[in-house]
């Protein structure tokens, strides 16, 4: 049996964390291949549906990356996302998805190394947790 390779969905804002991811690239900072990035304009547009959908479709972890508080391109969209997350996490936990599988981090546009670091650590966390039950269960 091959080793468990987690499937990570990262939903990140265009202005900060997506730019940080690009910077990690231009700086050739290697990080685990497991992450798949979806670009949002702002974490403020992060709909609970997206997170739930990702887990139901078998994602082992969902990483949300936005601007640091005070730096949001749209003033306070990041704070709205931060406010939404605990409610979503409470629902997920009810059905056995550990809260560690959903993470929100602020990564500024200049923080390429931080992006690398957070993603690497998050992938390792999820690897240690093992596969999400949804990844193996048949979700109908």
């Amino acid at each position, binding site marked *: 049996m091959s080793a468990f390779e987690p499937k990570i969905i990262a939903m990140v804002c265009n202005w900060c964390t997506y730019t940080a991811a690009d910077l990690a690239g231009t700086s050739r900072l290697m990080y685990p291949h497991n992450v798949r990035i979806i670009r949002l304009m702002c974490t403020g547009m992060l709909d609970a549906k997206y997170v739930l959908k990702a887990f139901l479709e078998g994602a082992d972890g969902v990483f949300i990356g936005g601007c640091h*508080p005070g730096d949001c391109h749209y003033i306070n969209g990041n*704070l709205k996302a931060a406010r939404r997350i605990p409610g979503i996490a409470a629902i997920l936990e009810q059905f056995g998805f550990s809260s560690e599988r959903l993470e929100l981090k602020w990564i500024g546009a200049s923080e390429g190394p931080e992006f690398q670091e957070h993603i690497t650590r998050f992938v390792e966390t999820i690897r240690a947790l093992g596969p999400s*039950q949804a990844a193996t269960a048949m979700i*109908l």
Partner: protein
Amino acid sequence: MEKNSAMTVFYLKTDKNPKAGVSAFLGRMLSQSLADAVLVSARTPHSPLPMPAVITDPEKIEAADPLAPAAPFNAARQAVSILRHESGRKIVLVLRPCEIRALVELVKLKQCVLDDAVIIGMECRGRMETPIYLEKAAENPDLTAAFYRDPGLQDAVCASCRICTRFLPQAADIAIRVIGEPTDERIGIVPQTPAGQDLVGRLGLSEGPDSPGREDAVANMRDLREQERERAFQETAGKTDTIEKFQKYVAQCLNCYNCRVACPVCYCRECVFLTDVFAHDPQVLMRRAAKKGMIKLPADTTMFHLTRMAHMAHACVACGHCSSVCPSHIPVADIFIKVGNEVQKRYGYEPGRDLEEPMPLMVYDKPVVE
């Protein structure tokens, strides 16, 4: 709605017929022109099952039977239909605590206004599922009076009511007190706001001391309910603690969306699951099938329930009507009430407690720190 610190209790005589006592009380509001209309659960000539009704004629008020242990739906929805705009008419609403909670949430969601309304809240021993109520009503022509007398009948209330700990009416102008009261003799009327005080003051009721044993009765009921609730939560957790178990839990779901139609705080004009967002292109379904090897149709059942939780769990008033209407008898409310409880705890939010309490997602300048 401001609470009075010193609660005065007035009493209605019931003469072994609490239904008549309450309807006479409401009738006086109409005949004395203290209210233009009363929205209250009432029996129509067609069925023993009480349905929400708007009564303006004092002659018709005897149909009112708010104490009957039945509620085919959460009447907040019906209340909204007459409170959408200011009407200039004074409307008295007789509601259960969970209905008041829903109404308060709906005001926050700008679905109605309470400017014209006076809320009379009933202390609630619960409601029976409609088929059970009809069965008991056939056996017992005076079921309302019997219900408050007979603990056996009280045990026949629905699952959500058995675990309800918020059975006293908050955010009501006037409370109808039945718990710990000898309902065959009298029922308590407790004004809880200045508006309630004003209204009750005009009805010439006699004031009285608290019934002995009242406090104990409330405490006992709360203890029992809390124990039952804890037990139910554990049982539900055991049935839903993995997503696979939850899929089994909702396996019979038909995607009929009755639960969301019955839900008083699912206020959307059109559920997102009925929109093009979930009207997938055939290719999407084929891709899903190809990925998993097999998919069940209709699609998105689990997604529907989780999304509905994400939308309304913070506002869930625990009325249980979602379970009552499920054609597949899925205990929808058991899991929604449990998740609601968890979400509400995290945000420090109690739905329906106070009109001034902002809904949790609206207060984003203070991120939640866990």
